[in-house]
């Protein structure tokens, strides 16, 4: 073996220490077996498998990688969100927003890890990642839109429009900043709790809530890409309150959380296999509903803010969103000689920017509405007295119980649905008889259904 080869082998052996002590035997087994593989590419491939095993089992590596990824994303988002010149009345609030948000995103998960434990299922990890990415992406977008709405224009006609539509004396930049921070803090705290092992929320509940929320958010964004203001007409809607898509959005606002609750309850009770306490079921259903409305509002709000910012910066998008067939509030109040084309364009931009406040209202009101609505659903589910509650029966009604559904494994394992060996490597759903259990030991089934330690 060459010096380089020996150094590489030593480095790999050293990397074994990154793996938890109870897993090191397995990594060392791969290194030991490498001597059996024919020299050359096949031995190299065998050792590459060992590296993959280390990457898979090394929690430390994952944690360092996650921290680095967050640091890079936070720096990028903070830099993009940091207000430049010219300074406006919103600039101090924007700076406070950036600093506080990054501190919240960095600090709250640490607290959650200490008090609630790290996320131990794949849906939980993905949900946290999605929440982080959305909040970090939202920060520069929100700041840019707010900065625009607080920046007086230069032209006299535009200034008239600005004073009519977005008079800063009637708005509070500090208040806007506080709303941003409250929304980010509450959402982050809620997601961290839902995805922590101590909450006892089943992965299936998280999947049901997030999926229904994205569907709802997509429809809500389609209906209101620039807020709910009727001044802003979507290019794909006639702009009336009774538009079918508008009706669908309102229906989905109330039905999606209920549907997610019912699905979560069914999957929870089916996975448990035995009667579960009503309190546990209520917790699953309420969480699914809340997650639906939060995900939907975050999706619609994030996309709406991004669309507004893009409209402000890209003339073609503004012209596409507004066909020019109507004059907005500010322009209507101008004298005829001031109804210039730039003033109309600016009117669209400033109205859209000011209307983004609706998204904050959505982010707060939707989950509150859902929580209120879900009290009724949860109580119905718990009493088993509603169509939503299906007791301990499996989906599909009566008859002998079928095979267990195959939810995502908490450890990132997969239940072999492709022929890709790498994708199937972890897929050992295996038998459902757990065998003798140590006191306090959590089985995989416990983790799947969210039974707490």
């Amino acid at each position: 073996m060459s010096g380089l080869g020996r150094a590489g082998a030593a480095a790999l052996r050293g990397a074994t220490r990154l793996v938890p002590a109870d897993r090191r035997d397995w990594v060392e087994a791969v290194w030991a077996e490498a001597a059996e593989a024919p020299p050359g590419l096949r031995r190299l491939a065998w050792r590459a498998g060992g590296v993959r095993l280390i990457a898979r089992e090394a929690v430390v590596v994952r944690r360092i990688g996650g921290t680095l990824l967050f640091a890079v994303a936070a720096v990028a988002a903070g830099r993009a969100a940091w207000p430049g010149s010219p300074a406006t009345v919103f600039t101090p609030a924007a700076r406070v927003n950036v600093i506080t948000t990054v501190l919240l995103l960095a600090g709250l998960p640490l607290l959650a890890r200490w008090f609630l434990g790290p996320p131990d299922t794949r849906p939980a990890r993905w949900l946290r990642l999605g929440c982080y990415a959305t909040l970090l992406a939202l920060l520069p977008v929100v700041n840019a839109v707010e900065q625009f709405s607080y920046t007086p224009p230069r032209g006299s006609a535009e200034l008239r429009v600005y004073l009519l539509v977005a008079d800063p004396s009637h708005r509070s930049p500090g208040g806007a900043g506080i709303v941003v921070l409250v929304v980010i803090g509450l959402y982050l705290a809620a997601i961290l709790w839902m995805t922590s092992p101590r909450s006892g929320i089943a992965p299936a509940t998280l999947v049901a809530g997030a999926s229904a929320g994205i569907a709802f958010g997509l429809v809500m964004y389609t209906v209101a890409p620039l807020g709910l203001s009727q001044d802003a007409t979507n290019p794909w809607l006639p702009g009336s309150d009774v538009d079918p898509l508008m009706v669908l959005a309102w229906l989905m606002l109330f039905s999606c959380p209920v549907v997610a609750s019912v699905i979560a309850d069914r999957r929870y009770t089916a996975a448990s296999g035995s009667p579960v306490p009503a309190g546990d079921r209520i917790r699953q259903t309420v969480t699914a509903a809340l997650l639906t409305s939060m995900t939907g509002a975050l999706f619609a709000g994030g996309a709406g803010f991004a669309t507004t910012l893009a409209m402000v910066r890209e003339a073609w998008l503004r012209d596409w969103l507004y066909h020019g067939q109507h004059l907005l509030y500010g322009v209507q109040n101008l004298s005829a000689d001031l109804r210039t084309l730039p003033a109309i364009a600016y009117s669209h931009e400033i109205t859209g920017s000011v209307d983004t406040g609706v998204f904050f209202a959505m982010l707060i009101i939707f989950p509150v509405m859902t929580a209120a609505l879900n009290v009724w659903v949860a109580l119905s589910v718990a009493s088993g007295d509603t169509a939503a509650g299906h007791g301990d029966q499996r989906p599909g009604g009566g008859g002998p119980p079928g095979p267990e559904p195959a939810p995502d494994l908490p450890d990132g394992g997969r239940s072999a649905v492709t022929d890709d060996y790498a994708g199937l490597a972890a897929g050992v759903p295996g038998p459902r008889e757990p065998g003798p259990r140590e006191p306090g030991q959590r089985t995989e089934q416990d983790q799947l259904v969210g039974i707490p330690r």
Partner: protein
Amino acid sequence: MSDRSGFSAQTLAVLAALCAQQSQWCHGYALARQTGLKSGTLYPILIRLADRGLVEACWQDEPQPGRPRRHLYRLTADGLAVAAAALAGAAEPAAKPGTRAARPTSGAVAQAVQQ
């Protein structure tokens, strides 16, 4: 493709290879050759089977001179029963008349099913 037992084709291949040795200890490279799996696929499967108590592992007592000690594996009693049931379950679709046989993704599975 997973069968009714919930095991992936790769896991079935490993179970079949271990079944073929019954109570004898096997080492990882031999299992890899029998199943056609790469080390990065084989060992996670072995780890999970061991976590479930279906496979037991130990280090070789007397290593060959000039060779590192090897890690050895065999099915436990529970593992043998589960593997037999899973392999029988995998064979069922092929045996049923009028049903399309599942495509074996591993020679070891196909061999085990034929046996």
